């Protein structure tokens, strides 16, 4: 009788403590857990991978400190992929808050590449390989305006350069030179890109979103409006996985490192449910 009580009435604080430990420890001692890549992420990877040489990729950085743990790893993984394949990248934000976070991600991945590069041709060079267009309010202005001319919307880039002087911008004029746009956001932006840029100009759109907003965006994937989709930490980890396994890119994989926390947390919850039920069945048999 004692054991069943023990199994059925575990103090909630013990559950909390165990959960806290299994989530925290993998973060402090990171190890990468490999993960099977699911179709939505695979589709996104292929969409980026097949961008032709004369077209570019636009990344819409619209995450804030709240959603950073889930969305920043996606940005890093996509940038690594694009830089490795020498796909030209245009970066922008629809809001002002994400600008600093976007710079961080761009600088980090650029530095990763340039530390390995020996020649100028090998390096990632601003203006030639990527451009950070910055922010141009209100959101609909760039979304619609870039259909005609990108340099007319962004007369200067984030760093104050005249965009028409940048070599990349002389080739990438408007959406017809853009192979794919990936919107990293948990709010409205992915929907806006679909409603305005895709419906009017046929822009291909992919997205990276938080786990909380998953159910809201799945329908767009089913209808084919999204060329691919990453959801939450798991989606980010899958992209990291596919980038590393297909292209042999090494580097910190923050989402894959957080994945063990996610897995263990689920397992702990499942274990407690099982323990509770074992106690319940033993007790019922005694009666």
């Amino acid at each position: 009788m004692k054991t069943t009580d023990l199994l059925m009435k575990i103090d909630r604080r013990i559950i909390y403590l165990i959960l806290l430990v299994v989530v925290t420890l993998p973060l402090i001692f990171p190890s990468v857990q490999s993960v099977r890549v699911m179709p939505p992420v695979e589709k996104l990877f292929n969409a980026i991978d097949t961008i032709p040489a004369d077209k570019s990729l636009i990344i819409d950085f619209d995450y804030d400190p709240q959603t950073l743990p889930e969305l920043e790893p996606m940005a890093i993984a996509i940038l690594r992929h694009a830089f490795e394949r020498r796909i030209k990248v245009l970066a922008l934000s629809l809001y002002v808050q994400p600008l600093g976070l976007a710079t961080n991600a761009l600088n980090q991945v650029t530095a990763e590449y340039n530390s390995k590069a020996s020649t100028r041709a090998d390096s990632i060079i601003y203006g030639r390989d990527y451009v950070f267009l910055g922010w141009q309010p209100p959101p609909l202005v760039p979304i619609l305006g870039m259909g005609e001319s990108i340099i007319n919307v962004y007369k200067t880039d984030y760093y104050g350069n005249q965009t028409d002087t940048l070599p990349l911008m002389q080739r990438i004029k408007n959406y017809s030179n853009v192979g794919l746009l990936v919107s990293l956001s948990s709010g409205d932006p992915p929907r806006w890109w679909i409603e305005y840029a895709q419906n009017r100009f046929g822009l291909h759109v992919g997205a990276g979103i938080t786990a909380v907003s998953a159910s809201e965006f799945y329908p767009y994937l089913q209808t084919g409006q999204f060329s691919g989709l990453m959801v939450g930490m798991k989606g980010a980890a899958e992209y990291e996985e596919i980038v590393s396994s297909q292209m042999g890119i090494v580097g910190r994989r923050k989402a894959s490192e957080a994945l063990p926390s996610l897995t263990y947390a689920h397992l702990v919850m499942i274990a407690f449910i099982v323990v509770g039920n074992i106690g319940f069945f033993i007790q019922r048999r005694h009666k």
Partner: protein
Amino acid sequence: MISVLVAGIFTLAPPTNVVVSDTPDDGGGAITIEWQLSADDAQLQRYEIYRSEDGLKYDKVGFIGRGRNAYEDETQDRTPYIYKVAAIMDTMRALSEPSTPVMSSAQWLDRNKINIIITVLLLGGMILYFIYRARRGRELYVRKISGLQAIDDAIGRATEMGKPILYCPGIGYIEDIATIASLSILGEVAKKCGQYDTKLINPHFDPIVYTVAREIVKEAYTDVGRPDAYDPDSVYFVTDSQFAYAAAVDGIMLRERPATNFLVGWFRAESLILAETGASTGAIQIAGTDQVSQLPFFVTACDYTLIGEELYAASAYISREPLLLGAIKGEDYGKIIIVGILVAASILGLLTKVPILQLFR
């Protein structure tokens, strides 16, 4: 390279058959332009739309990607406009023939919404008819709702233990139907609290709901003849920030140790924060909401949960007001109609070629 050469030798084919019309079902100020794609559509960068008032001077008003054959232009009502559409490739431009002139105007009725009007009239009429019948004094049956039976016991238990009752109306506004239903249940709970002399705690998220709740509680105490027992500090406003409100209610649960928690109204993610904290204090918990996304958490963490419409029905059930009961009868017939539509539309959709989905946009 080849395409450039080809384009260099041949002229670009313009879009043809430009048709313009006043955009239907809108508030005016828009004209829809449609055209047949240029024969060279695949090579184009975009189409540009040009507009003229006099047929001589054309201004560019917009552009749209290739493969698209329609554009909506913003216009001044009651001015005639003529349009041309151009196919654009690099520096080349091929203009279509001008359209016939057209004016935009506002419409008084949005025809796309007729199905909504019919739905409202049909279901609303049904409900009103049964309310009217109830007014004539027909006896109406309402089945038992398990959460409601528990209310009396729960209040009795708090009284025996000498502990307060917490009534949390959630984070809805006064116009949310769940909040309104919650307020009528609050009235009944307050009456019982007055009768048994049990302390009531009623913290609020929205100032207007707070104002109304205060009146309701005060009147409930007066109704049962205990206006003296009413404590004006029992109903109060906390904050209109979602998680600050949750933090504060959690604090109340742990410090005041209510014997019974009512979590009835409109909730979002804080539902489980409140319900689990309440469960940890050993309180009996009665929850109710129409938020489908939060129901799983209430069902798991609370003793009784009023699911969706049960919440609305509860307020009628508890008051036993014939008019409110009549509405429930009307709603039930509404359900029969919905089931009927589902079945009939499915059969129609399967057996005929009627574009049935179009009716339910």
